[in-house]
């Protein structure tokens, strides 16, 4: 009973942690980018202030909007939050991790995207449709790429449960594998695309020809916009956690670890987030945004890499 209680507490800690830390990571990326451009940049906690400011403003809803327009922010935020709560951050074996395996987490993000694209089309403006249509095109390549990566991880670890995969990766039995290298590159490409970062999309732009995510949420304001912003930040944390727990599982507290081990895991996690934030900032500054119709090639490369990696595993092992 006590164990269950401890597990519940840690699950709740994780749920609150990912929300609390998400704006900080985005603030860090922005700060790094600003410093690299020799600007001073806004303080690292600026996203918190932005969210606070947005949430206190009145929400403006277009005349032609349906009820879906007002429900969508909550659904998208909730599905992203639930997905983020199921990815191990500082410890594996979270209480509810068995409710959804990695395939279900990917699909849960897909559900969020489904509503996001519908929300973009709801008001009936050309920009909303533009964003939704481009997002749908990206997703048709990014999602299968992600699934092929899941195949590779699942075959290596013998499970699609993310906790089990992470625990297996943290053990010494893994070693260097070609498939893992391919999967990592593919996952990085998918993560860049899914989070709408340069070179696929630019979160800082409102230029008609290039925007994707911003175009879909163009009609949103006030608390609704705050929810979308926070959901986007959460998604970034989710992908960083995912990459960290599979490809850099150092310090991760394995199931039933002591509280000290979990605290150490938490420290390691913060370091990993910081490294990822700086790396993303450097990457984004050093690369140019690509044309929308070059993106399929970029994502197609991820799909091919993921597929080849999975194919290698299917052929080379007789399963354990």
């Amino acid at each position: 009973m006590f164990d269950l209680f401890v597990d519940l507490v840690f699950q709740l800690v994780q749920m609150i942690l990912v929300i609390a830390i998400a704006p900080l990571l985005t603030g860090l990326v922005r700060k790094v980018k600003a410093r690299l451009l020799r600007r001073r940049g806004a303080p690292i906690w600026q996203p918190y202030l932005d969210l606070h400011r947005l949430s206190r403003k009145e929400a403006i809803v277009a005349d032609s909007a349906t009820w879906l327009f007002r429900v969508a922010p909550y659904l998208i935020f909730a599905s992203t939050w639930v997905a983020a709560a199921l990815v191990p951050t500082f410890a594996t074996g979270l209480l509810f991790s068995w409710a959804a395996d990695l395939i279900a987490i990917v699909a849960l993000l897909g559900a969020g995207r489904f509503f996001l694209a519908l929300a973009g089309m709801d008001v009936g403006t050309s920009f909303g449709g533009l964003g939704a249509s481009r997002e749908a095109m990206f997703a048709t390549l990014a999602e299968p790429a992600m699934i092929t990566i899941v195949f590779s991880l699942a075959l290596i670890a013998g499970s699609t449960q993310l906790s089990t995969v992470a625990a297996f990766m943290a053990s010494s039995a893994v070693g260097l594998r070609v498939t893992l290298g391919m999967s990592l590159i593919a996952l990085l490409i998918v993560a860049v695309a899914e989070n709408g970062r340069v070179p696929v999309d630019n979160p800082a732009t409102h230029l008609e020809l290039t925007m994707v995510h911003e175009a879909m949420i163009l009609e949103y304001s006030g608390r609704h916009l705050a929810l979308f912003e926070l959901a986007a930040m959460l998604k970034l944390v989710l992908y960083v956690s995912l990459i960290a727990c599979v490809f850099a599982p150092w310090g991760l507290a394995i199931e039933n670890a002591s509280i000290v081990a979990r605290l150490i895991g938490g420290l390691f996690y913060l370091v990993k987030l910081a490294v990822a934030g700086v790396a993303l900032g450097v990457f984004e500054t050093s690369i140019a945004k690509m044309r929308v119709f070059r993106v399929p090639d970029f994502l197609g490369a991820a799909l091919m890499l993921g597929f080849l990696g999975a194919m290698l595993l299917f052929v080379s092992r007789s399963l354990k």
Partner: protein
Amino acid sequence: MTSLGCLLGVDAALLVLSLVAMALSGRRYASAFVYGAALALSLVGLVAAAWYFLTRQTPQDLVLPIGLPWIGAHFRLDALSAFFLGVVHLGATAASLYALGYGRHEPDPERVLPFYAAFLAGMGLVPLADDAYTFLLAWESMSLASWALVMSHHRDPENARAGFVYILMASFGTFALLLAFGLLAGADGAYTFAAMRATAPSTGIAALALALALIGAGSKAGLAPLHVWLPLAHPAAPSHVSALMSGVMTKVAIYAFIRIVFDLIGPADWRWSVPILILGAATGLIGVLHALMEVDLKRVLAYSTVENIGLVFIGLGLALAFKADGMGGAAALAMTAALLHALNHTLFKSLLFFGAGAVLTATGARDMGRLGGLLNKMPLTGLFMLIGCFAISALPPLNGFVSEWLILQAVLLGPLFPQWTLKLLAPTMGAAIALVAALAAACFVRAYGVPFLGRPRGPEAAEAKEVDRFSLTAMGGLATLCALAGLFPGVMIDALKPVVQLTVGMAMPLQSKVPWLSIAPIAEARSSYNGLLVLLFIVIAATLTSFIIHRVASNALRRAPAWDCGFPEPSSATQYTAESFSQPIRRVFGGFVFAARESVDIPRPGQLRPAHLRLVMRDLIWDSLYAPIGLYVGMIATRLNGLQFLTIRQYLSVVFGALVLLLLVLAAGA
């Protein structure tokens, strides 16, 4: 009375109803009477099938002295036929309920009512048949009744063409099935299913029978490249019949395939699964890409049926491969996934066709380019359609996701195959399923977003009204079932156990033992999923967020004109249309799937003519397979036309020549 007797009674009553409907032709209450009676009869059938299925009874046999003399008609009810009868009668119940409202808008009901009842009877008889003759009779009456329904609005030239293509393909399919049964019956002509089951044909005969079954059942189900009739015929029928054809008749075809390949042929060979898997994947991709390009709402749905049939066949192919390689557990997983997907598809595709029919009733339009903003005018239809679109996009926590998740879990057992071909095919299938699912999600964002969201694109959409209560009840019921099937997948998997046991010889582990209503197809440490908990989490998280926000943050809301980056947009024509939505996807996939060519003609500065965008897309399968066949058949027919104008002497010599030839063949045979 036994369940078998009850189900046969229902079919007989439906046939009588068909005659009564003819007698009632022209009466004002005919529609209400026929659909009401069909509803009651289907409900009885559903209860009888479910009763048999859930109480796990032993197979029931019955021989009636009808049909061919000396032989009689054999009927048999086992778990496999009971499951598919449940699907048939469930779909029929929903369609009849829906038609109580929708059928009132039918301009000439006497063209629909008699065939509707006969169609239901045909579909109810196919799974009961236990000999080839009865099977083919039921199969053909199902085909012909549905053909008559497709032709009910025959003055529209498009419908006439659809009916022509459909009857050609249906006859071709029945012919292939006839030959398949002929091969399985052997030289003695033992054409009861029991006799076929008892004798195992030689490898060559079995492979040929498999190919014929793939053609015969596949053409009815919509397997590429035999799918071309489906997107023409399904939308041409009235919407409740479209729902039956897409949601139910394709499942009867899948039943026929399972019955022949998993039951009658005998021991499986792993090589058979290769064409099934490749055709399944090709069907899925072709179906969904076509669905993404169509602008007619009902044709989008018909092509999406093709796609889902492809997924079911991938599941069946995996099940066959695992079964042939002696991996019963994995075969049971793949078979469960395929059957569950077939059932799920019946639920959401019927729902979506009902919704499309409701849109048609309210606006008179099927072209998405004239619709828009319907969610404001038809809130309930819009909500149910949203649930259907979400479910068919294979997103958690609804039912479409569960079956695709199970297929992916089966794919992940692919490394167990001893054969290299299958080892290489398994990940390809996995990638294909993922690609199809992602494209389907895009397709249904488009199919929902364009008609139901945005602003009305035409006057019909601006004045749309919510539809009647019967239609809404039918749609609401199916939407609820979609949700329940997604939230309690363990119950469904356990219920399917006898069918899976019958077809592949093993069953999945009992899911009711897994705690918290989760499902764990192989072992909990390997993979598990809990739709109920996922939904609960999302609801709690969303409620909590909205509570906190409304407590802490601003609650103010203002209605205003759309912002749209400051561009005023009075015309609703500036919205994204169905074509523009799929343009990026067309640019990625269209080049090699449709040989799509775009040419843009922009006038030079100073010229006052409009700019033009010309888009040419070709259906490559039609152009490279059907058009040449049509051409050659036409040429041969022109040549043979001369035979109609011979003199009596010439005719007599032709007859004499034929007789000599036949005698020679007989002599050579002896």
